[in-house]
């Protein structure tokens, strides 16, 4: 097994550009962690189009090259890949795009290949298959400033001759050296070629063989006098503490607790504040329109409905700020490493920990954050269990029911009472359901033949304000687009259902009659038709049920909470009340989550399965709860 010193297997590749003439579309190619996204943001500015490629869950990013004043050119950001063999969904997508076989994506006629110059020797492995495509290519050695500051070096001229394409040193985070991209694109727009390889033809390794790629890459890097930078001593020292046997897990817990605490103690008031602001604005606009059906549709229906989702925006952005800092600094990978052992015992991997934690605030950002999990089965399993975590939208109905039905009896002194105990058990209930579901999924439809966990540990870096800002904008836009489309549509449908026939009150409307129609179905759970209507309207968002019940019980908005509690006590048994909170612990009453699962899995199959599974589970659990309380508690 020792042919390391034999001749490198090579084939000759003509490097004439495949497409003569003008460049319209440029593809950005690079391995994961090469700083590709930062460069993409630099080159395109803030206006990007983010969608999914058809039929797969890989994100498609396109933008015009506004960042360097070439808005006539389109830049496509391909997923981070190690090679062009179809070893993963990402790589398959990249190959299809580069060959112009991806429907809806323009065929690239030039390539920007980004390589991390800190690890050039390894990253050059990707250059071989990319250059073999024969497209005009510019190789960008990213983080050259860091490499040189740490004593590394490479002869770019020699590298350009070895590769037969121009090579430029850049720093995407600092925006240094990007004029090379402008030069390359201007020059390539002219028909004649201006960069000639040393020997007229370049030698590339046999395609599809990682081993020959590696030999070739090592050969090229030694011929171009590549000297890797002295490894980041800081990274090793920091890891010595953050991955220490005792300090590591301790710091991990502190970080987790701090994120949780801030998201709730700062995020919640921000949400509430935004909610008040939106309601006040709605009332002002309503006053302008006058008291008619249009006001009812626009303000009570659309505005209030969309506002009930918008209020989550501050908390979601705050969560993404934290996830962004953790990811960009390099700590997220360490957290995944620490959490892996525990997460593995429930059939998930360490990378699922942070998304699941985020789901305690809101399942929507949690599901968007699962993109860091490359393994598709693990990612889908995480998406499917995330809505079981007790999100903040469940709190209003929990608080209402607990305040109305559970006496404030102390259990462990004044600090921990019966109400707190019930609240805590609802959290535990959701968590246990998530564990059980994860286990069920991983041993059935998402069963994996093996559990690969390949985690690259990047060097520690300071996150830049710019990249954090872009991330927040990007995720915020995704969330708002959901609010603007799916949720708007559901809101209008719900409003129409609750206002037909005209002039009927809520109980007499279509949705009211539907609620009465399903009463026999929900009677065994201890629910009446009013709760039935609440369940139907809260398909939009969980907290909507409180408002619906308020309307139904005809309570004055000013004293709604007090009056509502008394009304509920008259109308419901303890069994029914507890069955209702258990129902909410399990049911997927959230249009935003359904919409985001649809987007992230790129199919209606998964959200449909999830909705049915969670609804059935919620029904059965609520039934058991009510029957147990009716028969065994006084």
């Amino acid at each position, binding site marked *: *097994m*020792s042919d*390391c010193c034999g001749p490198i297997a090579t084939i000759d590749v003509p490097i004439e550009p495949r497409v003569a003439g003008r460049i319209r579309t440029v593809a950005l190619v690079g391995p994961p962690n090469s700083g590709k996204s930062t460069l993409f943001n630099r080159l395109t500015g803030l206006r990007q189009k983010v969608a999914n490629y058809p039929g797969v869950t890989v994100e498609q990013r396109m933008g015009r090259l506004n960042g360097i004043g070439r808005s006539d050119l389109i830049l496509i950001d391909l997923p981070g890949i*190690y*090679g062009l*063999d179809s*070893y*993963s969904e990402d790589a398959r997508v990249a190959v299809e795009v580069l060959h112009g076989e991806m429907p809806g994506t323009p065929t690239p006629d030039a390539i920007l290949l980004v390589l991390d110059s*800190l*690890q050039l*020797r*390894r990253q050059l*492995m990707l250059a071989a298959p990319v250059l073999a495509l024969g497209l005009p290519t510019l190789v960008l050695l990213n983080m050259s400033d860091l490499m040189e500051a740490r004593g590394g070096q490479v002869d770019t001229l020699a590298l350009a001759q070895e590769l037969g394409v121009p090579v430029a040193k850049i720093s995407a985070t600092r925006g240094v050296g990007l004029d090379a991209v402008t030069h390359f694109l201007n020059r390539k727009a002219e028909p004649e070629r201006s960069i000639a390889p040393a020997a007229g033809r370049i030698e590339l390794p046999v395609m599809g063989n*990682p*081993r020959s*790629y*590696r030999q070739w890459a090592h050969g090229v890097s030694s011929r171009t006098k590549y000297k*890797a*930078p*002295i*490894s980041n*001593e800081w990274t*090793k*020292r920091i*890891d*010595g503490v953050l*991955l*220490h*046997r*005792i300090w*590591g*897990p301790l710091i991990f817990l502190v970080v987790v607790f701090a994120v949780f605490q801030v998201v709730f103690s700062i995020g919640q008031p921000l949400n509430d504040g935004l909610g008040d602001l939106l309601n006040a604005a709605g009332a002002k606009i309503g006053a302008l329109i006058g008291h008619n059906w249009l006001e009812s549709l626009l303000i009570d229906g659309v505005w209030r409905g969309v506002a009930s989702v918008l209020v989550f925006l501050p908390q979601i952005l705050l969560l993404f700020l934290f996830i962004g800092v953790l990811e960009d600094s390099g700590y997220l*990978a360490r957290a995944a*490493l*620490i959490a*892996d*052992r*525990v997460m*593995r015992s429930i059939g998930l991997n360490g990378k699922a920990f942070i998304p699941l934690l985020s789901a305690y605030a809101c399942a929507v950002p949690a599901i968007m954050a699962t993109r860091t999990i490359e393994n598709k089965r693990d990612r889908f399993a995480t998406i499917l269990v995330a809505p079981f975590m007790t999100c903040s939208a469940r709190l209003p109905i929990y608080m209402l029911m607990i305040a109305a039905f559970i006496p404030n009896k102390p259990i462990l002194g004044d600090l921990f009472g019966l109400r707190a105990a019930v609240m805590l058990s609802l959290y535990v209930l959701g968590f246990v359901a998530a564990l059980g579901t994860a286990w069920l999924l991983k041993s059935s439809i998402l069963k994996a*033949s*093996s*559990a*690969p*966990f*390949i*985690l*690259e*540990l990047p060097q520690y870096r300071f996150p830049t304000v710019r990249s954090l800002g872009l991330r927040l904008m990007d995720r915020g836009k995704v969330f708002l687009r959901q609010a603007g489309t799916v949720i708007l549509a559901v809101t209008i449908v719900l409003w129409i259902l609750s206002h037909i026939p005209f002039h009927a009150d809520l109980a007499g409307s279509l949705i009211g009659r539907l609620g009465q129609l399903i009463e026999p179905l929900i009677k065994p759970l201890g629910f009446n038709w009013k709760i039935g209507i609440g369940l139907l309207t809260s398909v939009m968002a969980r907290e909507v049920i409180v408002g619906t019940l308020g309307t139904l019980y005809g309570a004055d908005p000013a004293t709604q909470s007090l009056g509502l509690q008394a009304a509920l006590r008259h109308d419901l048994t303890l069994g029914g009340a507890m069955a209702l909170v258990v129902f909410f612990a399990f049911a997927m009453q959230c249009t935003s989550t359904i919409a985001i699962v649809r987007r992230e899995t790129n199919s209606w199959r998964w959200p449909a399965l999830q909705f049915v599974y969670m609804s059935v589970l919620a029904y059965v659990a609520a039934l058991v709860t009510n029957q147990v309380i009716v028969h065994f508690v006084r």
Partner: protein
Amino acid sequence: MVAIALLSDFGAEVADDFDLSGAWKLSLLSELPIGTVGVVESLDLPGEIQHHLMHMGFVPEARVMVVRRAPAGDPTVYSIDGFEVALRRDTAQAIRVREYETPNTR
């Protein structure tokens, strides 16, 4: 703390500067102690994972150094081609390496 002190003696490219003239024995990557270097002999993993690892540099004749273990003892962090990657024990068990008995650190 011993492991940390030992590691600070290595540079980024340690695995490539390693003196591999000494005696060696066949072993599994998962069995190597921290701070030692192994040379990859072969991989025996399902296609997709094997491909992924090979693209990351785990190819025959590549030198891998064991950097540290996660606080729970698993996964383990390895250094290859100047970057660090963590693998679970069951993955590392499928990678056969030549283990050199006396790592020559200086």
